[in-house]
């Protein structure tokens, strides 16, 4: 079962700049949350802060696991945005995934370790290229391995930083469906950063939309609205539905003065302190 995350009034500064401002949200156990926002909005910083790799200036983060595992690196599996891989080395995919196993002072793998690697490769559909050199795999295949490596410790939360970037639309769709299946099958909480609104809208239970200093969280229907995005960006933004696709574009409409989410029960929730 996945773990829950509670972030309360989180402030993070990097190099003197405030990257995250008064960010508060919760992720329920087993939930799939998509994170969207422009470059430099602090999406990656948020994931790195959850991992404890970036110091918190103020506010709090609490991870509520099932108590079976300890330490954030065991509860959280993280697949970073970019990797430095030597294309000269013919390291096979299976070995690459096994790197993610918990590190003990013994060089060999136990039966349980092998089973965990096999399971991580099965769930990411990467068994068929397990013995191929990683340098010879396509971008989509490598991304599956990166996710498998993050999964091999059986984490309760999976943080994925733009796993679908640099992939063609077909490969993006395949990978996103694999991630959604992991979320459903393993009940792991997933935080998935992407620039593709439609991809996220298709699979995420909720969306966290971050811009510089502002944010909104809710269902796709709640967040991807013109007035919400206009307020987040501080400039006119239009959300259009073309067939089954969402198109987000700038428009000349004047922004509304309110920023809140409209819940199905008719109540409204203030999402961010906006000062335009």
């Amino acid at each position, binding site marked *: 079962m996945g773990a829950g995350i509670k972030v309360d009034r989180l402030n993070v500064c990097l190099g003197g700049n405030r990257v995250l401002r008064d960010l508060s949200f919760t992720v329920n156990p087993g939930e799939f949350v998509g994170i969207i926002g422009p470059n430099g909005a602090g999406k990656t910083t948020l994931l790195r802060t959850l991992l404890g790799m970036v110091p918190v200036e103020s506010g709090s983060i609490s991870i509520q696991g099932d108590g079976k595992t300890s330490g954030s*690196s065991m509860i959280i599996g993280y697949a*970073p945005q970019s990797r*430095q891989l030597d294309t000269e080395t013919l390291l096979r995919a299976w070995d690459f995934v096994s790197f993610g196993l918990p590190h003990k002072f013994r060089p060999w793998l136990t039966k349980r370790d092998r089973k965990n690697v096999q399971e991580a490769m099965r769930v990411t559909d990467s068994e068929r290229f397990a*013995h191929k050199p990683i340098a010879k795999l396509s971008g989509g295949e490598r991304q599956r391995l990166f996710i498998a490596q993050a999964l091999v410790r059986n984490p309760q939360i999976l943080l994925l930083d733009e796993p679908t970037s640099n992939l063609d639309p077909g490969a993006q769709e395949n990978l996103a469906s694999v991630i959604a299946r992991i979320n459903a099958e393993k009940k792991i909480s997933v935080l998935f950063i992407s620039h593709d609104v439609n991809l996220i809208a298709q699979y995420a239970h909720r969306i966290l939309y971050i811009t510089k200093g502002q944010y909104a969280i809710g269902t796709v229907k709640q967040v991807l609205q013109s007035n919400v995005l206009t307020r987040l960006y501080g400039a006119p933004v239009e959300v259009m539905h073309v067939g089954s696709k969402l198109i987000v574009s700038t428009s000349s409409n004047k922004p509304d003065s309110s920023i809140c989410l409209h819940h199905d029960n008719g109540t409204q929730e203030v999402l961010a302190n906006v000062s335009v």
Partner: protein
Amino acid sequence: MFQYDFMQHAFIAGTIVAIMCGAIGVFVIARGLPFIAHTFSHIGFSGAAFALYLGIDPLNGMLLFTCASALAIGRLGIKMFRKDAVISVVLSIFLGIGLLFLSLSSKQSNAITSLLFGTVLGISPLDVEKLAILSAFVLSMLILGYKMLTFDSFDPVGAQAAGLPIRFISIGFLLLLSIATAEAVQIVGALLVFTLMTTPAAIAQRLTHSVSRMIFLSSLISVIGVWAGLVLAFYTNAPVSFFITAVEGTLYFASLGWINYRERSIRENTVTLDAT
């Protein structure tokens, strides 16, 4: 050949150091540190010259200088020492210091040749013992830290994301490398340390797909080079280091030829299958 004590000592010392260099070399290549190893060999040269000046064992001087440098590099950050300009400046400074100490000591000409090109045929039983202890230490540390070291060497971004103590691993590895380099200098000399430290590993990484096989193959190639070098040197009176470099170099280019041939065959087979 084996009736001579000096040949027995040379074979034992050469084999021990070759196995250790072959093993650590895989990580040197994966971490992109061949020129750091080369820098250590020059630092070791000046350390040995300093030891000769003081009238103590050159190996002790080498270890003192290389280990101190490893700690300094680890503290300042390894990225800085990957830059060509920094490497060239450090290399020349330490070669200069080495020459200064040699000019001040009374054992100049013989010592220069021995330190720059190795002294494996003149190795004493006490030296063999010291090399065996140091090699056992390096290999034990590599075995104990194998999992963390492979992860950090082949996927540094993933290792950081998984919460590994990457700074500790980096400094620890530099210390092991400094010891290994000081040992290799005894066999092939300061100028030819690449021969044992990087050439066998560079061959192995192109021929095998798993890290453990790379280590085994790299050590095997390293041992073959040393044994062939010793045998050829015994029957021809030419320097051992020359034969070791010649054998390792030949194996390297033969491996490149084999890889090209194999890839061309695979391409041709694929074209033939497509045509049918």
